[in-house]
């Protein structure tokens, strides 16, 4: 039991990389302003997801809906390490990534409800959403496919020598897909500027990492390709940002790809129809009580007296207002016109 691989509490820890690889950096020193920003950004994701869960229950959102609650620190910290033009791509648990990319909550929520005001005009849904303007490249429903695609986005950066980096997110589950390793190989072979952010939330649907993965230290998954990796406390937004800055700098300096093993946790089920039989309620409760990324920020802020309880509540209230507005829009915005059925299948070639 001493070596319980999958229940490591915090991972602010060792570098598990090859000799030449970087070590896990110390959490970034946050100013008051940065703490409050991060608090607000993470709250936005959480309240948005809670609302999405409600709307799903009410029948406004159909199909699959994968909530990001618990993992907010990962995208919030990583986004802070990006510069203009950097791309983001992920799989289907993507609402948090889109909000972090500064996509409009209204447009995201309206896509969840399948309305014309959604980012894909209602034709993509929860799992397939994009924003060229915000450099968000989806939103992909096939586990692992986004890893090759993200590597291709990085290929573009290298080809154009634009100094940009692609954040390619995937989970512990996707980490066992073959194309992930095909992509690793080429990314290192050609030194592509791609940060592989493995959101290790410990469960691939309902299969715990130790039941699915022969090697559960995902930071070492790049060893065969000489891609370094570091383990990061994905429940601490400061640790994530520090790792994100290190990783993006690594890529921008021409050293090629790098892996970040984000130790995180999802509170909700895999999707809305999760049986919750594969883990105990106690485990979830313990994580929420001890590791919650938003509570950790709030505690620090309160301890340093950077804000009062009331001031934090005011942030929450503002965020709830924005989310309520998005939900209202998503419920009242019309469905796409029937003529949309046949648009966007192919780009018309000039006659």
């Amino acid at each position: 039991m001493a070596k319980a691989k999958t229940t490591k509490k915090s991972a602010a820890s060792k570098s598990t990389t090859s000799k030449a690889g970087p070590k896990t950096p110390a959490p970034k020193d946050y100013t008051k302003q940065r703490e409050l920003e991060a608090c607000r950004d993470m709250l936005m994701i959480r309240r948005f997801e809670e609302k999405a869960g409600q709307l799903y229950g009410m029948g406004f959102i159909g199909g699959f809906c994968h909530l990001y609650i618990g993992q907010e620190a990962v995208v919030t910290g990583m986004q802070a390490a990006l510069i203009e033009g950097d791309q983001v791509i992920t799989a289907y648990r993507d609402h948090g990534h889109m909000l972090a990319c500064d996509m409009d909550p209204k447009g995201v929520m309206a896509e969840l409800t399948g309305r014309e005001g959604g980012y894909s005009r209602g034709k993509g849904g929860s799992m397939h959403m994009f924003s060229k303007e915000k450099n968000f490249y989806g939103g992909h429903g096939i586990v692992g496919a986004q890893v090759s695609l993200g590597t291709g986005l990085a290929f573009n950066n290298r080809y154009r020598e634009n100094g940009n980096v692609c954040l390619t997110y995937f989970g512990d589950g996707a980490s066992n897909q073959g194309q992930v390793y095909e992509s690793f190989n080429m990314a290192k072979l050609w030194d592509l500027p791609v940060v592989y952010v493995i959101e290790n939330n410990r469960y691939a649907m309902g299969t715990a990492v130790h039941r699915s993965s022969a090697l559960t230290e995902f930071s070492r998954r790049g060893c065969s390709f000489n891609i370094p990796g570091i383990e990061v406390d994905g429940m601490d937004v400061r640790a994530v940002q520090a790792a994100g800055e290190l990783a993006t700098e690594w890529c921008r300096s021409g050293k090629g790809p790098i892996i970040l093993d984000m130790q995180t946790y999802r509170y909700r089920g895999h999707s809305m129809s999760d049986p919750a039989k594969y883990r105990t309620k106690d485990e979830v409760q313990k994580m929420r009580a001890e590791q919650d990324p938003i509570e950790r920020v709030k505690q620090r802020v309160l301890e340093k007296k950077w804000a009062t309880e009331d001031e934090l509540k005011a942030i929450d209230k503002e965020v709830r207002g924005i989310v309520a507005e998005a939900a209202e829009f998503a419920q009242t915005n019309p469905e796409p016109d029937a003529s949309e059925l046949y648009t966007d299948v192919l780009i018309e070639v000039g006659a």
Partner: protein
Amino acid sequence: MATDILMPALSPTMEEGTLAKWLVKEGDAVAAGDVIAEIETDKATMEVEAVDEGTVGRIAVAEGTENVKVNAVIAALIEDGESADAAAAAPVAEPEAAAAPVVEAAAVVEAAAVATVPAAPVAAAPTPIEVKPASDPDIPEGTEMVSTTVRDALRDAMAEEMRHDEDVFVMGEEVAEYQGAYKITQGLLDEFGAKRVIDTPITEHGFAGIGVGAAMAGLKPIVEFMTFNFAMQAIDQIVNSAAKTLYMSGGQMGAPIVFRGPNGAAARVGAQHSQCYAAWYSHIPGLKVVAPYSAADAKGLLKAAIRDPNPIIFLENEILYGQSFDVPALDDFVLPIGKARIHKSGNDVTLVSFGHGVRYAIDAAAAMAELGIDAEIIDLRTIRPMDMATVIESVKKTNRCITVEEGFPQSGVGAEIGMQIMQEAFDYLDAPVLRVTGKDVPMPYAANLEKLALPSVEEIVEAARAVTYK
């Protein structure tokens, strides 16, 4: 007695090659394993070894001779005591295809197969196959035509587009230093450099996905699959990522990418290397599927495909690569995707095919003419979007239709055409639409079985007789 040394085959589809160099001369003694000659095709170079010992009695084909047919006698070995005259008198017979004489020279290649094509001793320069562009208004009257192989036409199309657009690059297995597994990318590395002509590892799923990602960011990749058989490893990225992203993003981002490579049966490469994917990809909204027959179409349509902002499946055919056709000598010869070509006009029955299938249709039409059946041949050129208007118009004239394809029958291209004719021109039909397809079996290896598995001219003629009641 003298034993003949025959021109060996370098690949399953090789029909002829250049005898580049003799390393022995008449009168030289050779032992088994000695390299005696070098042979080249546009695709590869190889050494010819003696498999028996003896004396080179006669060299029948001088070095530097081009277009030497596979199985043609290139020299003869004589045993000790035999005179060179005996060798000289050896008949230069046309060897039988299936029962080729013992090949006395072994090819030093991985897959030296017995050529299935009867070889004439030495051929003149290949005459281009005549393709009358009956419905191709895009080639102005009086345009100069240059005899070009499909292989060179494809290469020229890529090179021209790469010269015009920095965002176009080509990636795939062996496309750069090896110069292309089928030599389609020959010379591109020299001209465009390693940044734009990229050798990938053997990792179809991965590099297809990387190509799509690069395309989503605005680059215009040409992804070569060594054959489309291997693209099944990548089909998720082609279908789920390349074809659907434009729709799923509400038109925000698509994938301007060309997936190209040889498709369908080559010759004697068995079940896993001999499959036609035209019907598979044509099933998918969001893809365009192009399958040219002639070199001109290959060039004009590949250029169009590279410029097209949508994902294109470009199905080539290994057997056609080495065949020469007239290609218009125009600076910028681009053909429209989605338009069929009437290869030959006729009144009695419409033959609809694409890619290598057109070859069967042409030969069948010639055979039909002898029976007094005047066939119209439609080369679809594009499978999706399919130019059914041209087919329907033809059927309204001929009242009969036969589809020809190498793919499997069920849910095939012919099935789709038949259905559409039923919907659009039922009252014009004087006979059921018939399909001539590859048989409903995995491709066998044995030469006789393979021949049976593929469509044949006889089957097409038989179908034509059935629908014309002759």
